[in-house]
């Protein structure tokens, strides 16, 4: 096919801490993956990685970029800026008397994100530096009560003074967050206008963020953190993305770059609320799984992504990804809707040590990360990592690690494993290394099982997708014996997050907290009021969604609005999120329809008998999602070529240690395998970006969509 009938249409970018992956897809679904070392200048890394990918098609970015229609970016730069506390100096204005709540972090930020033992022990608890320093914090006298009524009018002369001091001190942005402002935003907005006025008088141009304009939701620590991130971390990202967009435009790109956001949609890089894109990499994988599942007709999917430092799991149930209302990221509580994921700090690069008291193996919690392990002397690591064990046992090819860009020293790795692990345990080198891998697989398997059964499901109802750089190496190990319907490894596992980003909708999502409660004693007038309140909240959110789309030149006719809400039985702690059965509401009967939808959802998620309508119903949040049509990658579809792999796919054999003995594993080149081909273990299927291990007792076949199906045969 030529370029005209089969143009390159979609680009997904995953700019990680160490590698920048690009994923290009043609109209017929064929794709290439590119890799480049990440760079301080992200645009450079993206273009280098693009050139690497397109070289597979003998093309250059200059030829391809002008024909593309979609580009989605996800990266870790913003997250790193937050973790390293290298953001914009930001001043904070709060209700007087509450200057300290931000650094108190709801008393949970001192252990958020820590391993279980470190959460239990007080001596490991520690508060990170607050985003806004206490010296850059000012209180302004005002008070709004829990119903939104003004108790103390705002003293604007204090706000004026505060703004002047903060700007004089050198703050480059100001954030305003008052108590209960989500119920009544007049005070915050008045102070915002005063700050802008003061800045103008002083002849400086600084951004001012009132929390009510961005995240009008309850829980002031969450709301303040999130609004602060908008100033502290997202402002610098705007400049980086503008540069990326300009560089792409220079070589002919006509599309608008979009960024993956934590709610699972993509938003424009020009969006007002860019803090939503703080965490995007792992979400890309979940979105990619959902898209793949939808295209191929899988209802229930367990997503598993294993990288160098962590194992991320998520569930798709009946085609739906569940959402977490206040996600926490980078050890901060935030009011961002986040795709629910479970993460454990064990990965393919975890360090391995012997616990001197129990004389047993201990994995992590830290990992070698980009420094790989003792097998890469230039990385400067002296402690054995899981990767070292993989290299020793023949799982990975030391001569082609990450496409051969690193030179590995296998004898050094053997010596380190012998000295640090095998000798202290009194085992052979091979058994010690195999023990490490078994331990990692066991711990991943237990977490995967726990996550599924804790939600009341059984693995036998699920198909497991395994991706990420380390997914295909461990897929057999962490799914063995769990009883999944099937385990699927996409041939583009290493670029799966980038692929997933490209499959996500162009979608904005806004939330607003509401306090609506209707019991069986409520009157029709009460229901009318409830419906009016919810309707007004939807209207407000819809306006915000439209405002964002207008930046990219869309009109109301282009945008599909999907209202949603979170409802609970009054008095219960948990609420459920669902799409509204109605796009417009206006009568008391509409309330009954919302309730009926909630009742059904509740019965499906929990159980019929657990329903408690006698308690009455509350709406805790109004949600509005707006999306426009975008071009998504097609899934490749190739004809069946029979079970026998072609000669060019077979590349030899390698000694491989499994089941306490050395065997000869057949080696295959992943790119050269054809649909229908069957491979029986022991075998190792290699490509530049990933290695797929099929041990004895397993078999795999490649389908027409370039998905490997892993089957346990014994």
């Amino acid at each position, binding site marked *: 096919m030529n370029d005209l009938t089969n143009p390159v249409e979609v680009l997904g970018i995953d700019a990680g801490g160490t590698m920048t992956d690009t994923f290009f897809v043609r109209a017929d679904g064929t794709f290439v993956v590119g890799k480049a070392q990440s760079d301080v200048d992200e645009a450079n890394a993206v273009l280098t990685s693009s050139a690497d990918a397109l070289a597979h098609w003998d093309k250059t970015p200059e030829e391809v970029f002008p024909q593309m229609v979609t580009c989605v970016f996800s990266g870790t730069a913003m997250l790193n800026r937050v973790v390293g506390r290298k953001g914009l100096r930001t001043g904070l204005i709060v209700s007087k008397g509450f200057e300290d709540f931000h650094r108190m972090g709801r008393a949970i930020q001192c252990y958020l994100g820590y*391993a279980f*033992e*470190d959460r239990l*022990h007080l*001596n*490991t608890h*520690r508060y990170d530096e607050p985003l806004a320093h206490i010296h850059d914090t000012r209180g302004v006298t005002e008070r709004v009560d829990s119903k939104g009524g003004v108790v103390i009018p705002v003293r604007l002369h204090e706000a004026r003074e505060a703004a002047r001091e903060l700007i004089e001190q050198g703050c480059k942005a100001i954030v305003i967050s008052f108590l209960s402002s989500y119920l009544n935003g007049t005070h915050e907005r008045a102070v915002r206008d005063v700050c802008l006025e003061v800045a103008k008088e002083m002849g400086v141009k600084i951004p001012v963020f009132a929390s009510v304009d961005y995240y009008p939701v309850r829980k002031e620590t969450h709301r303040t953190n999130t609004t602060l991130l908008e100033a502290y971390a997202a402002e610098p990202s705007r400049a980086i993305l503008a540069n990326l967009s300009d560089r792409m435009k220079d070589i002919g790109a006509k599309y608008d770059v979009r960024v993956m956001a934590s709610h699972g949609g993509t938003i424009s890089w020009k969006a007002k609320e860019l803090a939503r894109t703080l965490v995007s990499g792992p979400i890309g994988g979940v979105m990619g799984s959902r898209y793949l599942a939808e295209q191929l007709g899988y209802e229930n999917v367990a997503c598993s992504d294993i990288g160098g430092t962590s194992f991320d799991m998520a569930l798709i149930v009946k085609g739906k990804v569940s959402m977490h209302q206040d996600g926490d990221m980078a050890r901060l509580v935030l009011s961002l809707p986040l795709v629910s994921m479970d993460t454990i700090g064990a990965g393919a690069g975890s360090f391995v*040590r*012997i*616990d*001197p*008291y129990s004389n047993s193996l201990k994995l992590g*919690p*830290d990992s070698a990360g980009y420094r790989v392990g003792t097998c890469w002397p230039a990385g400067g690591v002296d*402690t054995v990592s899981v990767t070292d064990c993989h290299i020793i046992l023949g799982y990975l090819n030391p001569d082609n690690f990450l496409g051969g860009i690193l030179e590995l020293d296998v004898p050094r790795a053997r010596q380190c494993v012998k000295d640090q692990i095998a000798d202290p345990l009194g085992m052979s080198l091979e058994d010690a290394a195999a023990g490490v891998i078994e331990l990692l697989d066991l711990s991943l398997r237990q977490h995967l099982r726990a996550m599924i059964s804790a939600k009341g499901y059984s693995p036998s109802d699920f198909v497991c997708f395994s991706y990420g750089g380390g997914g295909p190496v461990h897929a057999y190990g962490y799914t063995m014996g769990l009883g999944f319907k099937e385990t699927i490894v996409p041939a583009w596992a290493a670029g799966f997050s980038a692929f997933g980003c490209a499959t996500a909708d162009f979608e904005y999502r806004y939330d607003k907290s509401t306090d609506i409660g209707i019991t069986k004693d409520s009157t029709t007038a009460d229901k009318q009021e409830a419906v009016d309140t919810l309707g007004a909240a939807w209207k407000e959110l819809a306006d915000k969604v439209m405002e964002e789309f207008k930046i990219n030149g869309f009109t109301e006719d282009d945008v599909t609005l999907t209202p949603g809400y979170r409802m609970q039985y009054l008095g219960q702690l948990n609420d459920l999120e669902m799409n509204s059965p109605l796009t417009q509401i206006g009568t008391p009967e509409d309330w009954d329809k919302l309730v009926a939808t909630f009742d059904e959802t509740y019965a499906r998620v929990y159980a019929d008998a657990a329903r408690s309508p006698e308690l009455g119903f509350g709406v805790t949040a109004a949600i509005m999602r707006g999306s426009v049509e975008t071009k998504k990658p097609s899934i490749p579809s190739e004809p069946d070529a029979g079970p026998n792999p072609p000669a060019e796919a077979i590349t030899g054999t390698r000694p491989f240690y499994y089941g306490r003995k050395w065997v000869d594993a057949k080696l295959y080149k992943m790119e050269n395998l054809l649909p229908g081909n069957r491979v029986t273990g022991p075998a190792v299927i290699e490509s530049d970006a990933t290695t797929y291990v099929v041990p004895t007792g397993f078999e795999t076949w490649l389908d027409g969509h370039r998905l490997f199906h892993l089957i346990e045969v014994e």
Partner: protein
Amino acid sequence: MSNYTKKQVSDLVKGTLDWETVHLMLSMPKDKDRYKLYMEVLQENVSYDDKILLAVGPHLNIVESAKDQEIIIKCDCGHEFGHYSKNWKLGALIYVRDSVEKMKEVYPELMAPDTSWQVYREYYCPSCGIMHDVEAPTPWYPVMHDIEPDLKTFFEWLEMPAPAKI
């Protein structure tokens, strides 16, 4: 098990070690060399040659006297408080805060305890004047004896040679 350098242990004592390393030290099983390195670091911070066995305060150590191998408690400045089995506080200068005025010197009014219920007893070195400890007991309570270490067992645990006179 991890290994740390003497520089890292020294920074730990000074309080300048980076949090990531401190966190790792706290979470991981203790490395075998740690106590030895810790004692070496302490030894470098004092002016005397007597061997430090155990720290009982930021500037107060149990040492093996170079003179007669007796185990005594010694201030960084060299002042000797006597045999380690005796309460060193009895040989210290003592200042008791037992009135509103004296409390006001350290805490704002109304934020200090009622001295008929609780007093502060401050213990100072008679030679160099450094503060070694503060107690906050009820006024009638005897001088507290904070630590009576079983050094013999301690050195068995450490798997290090014990001094002769314990």
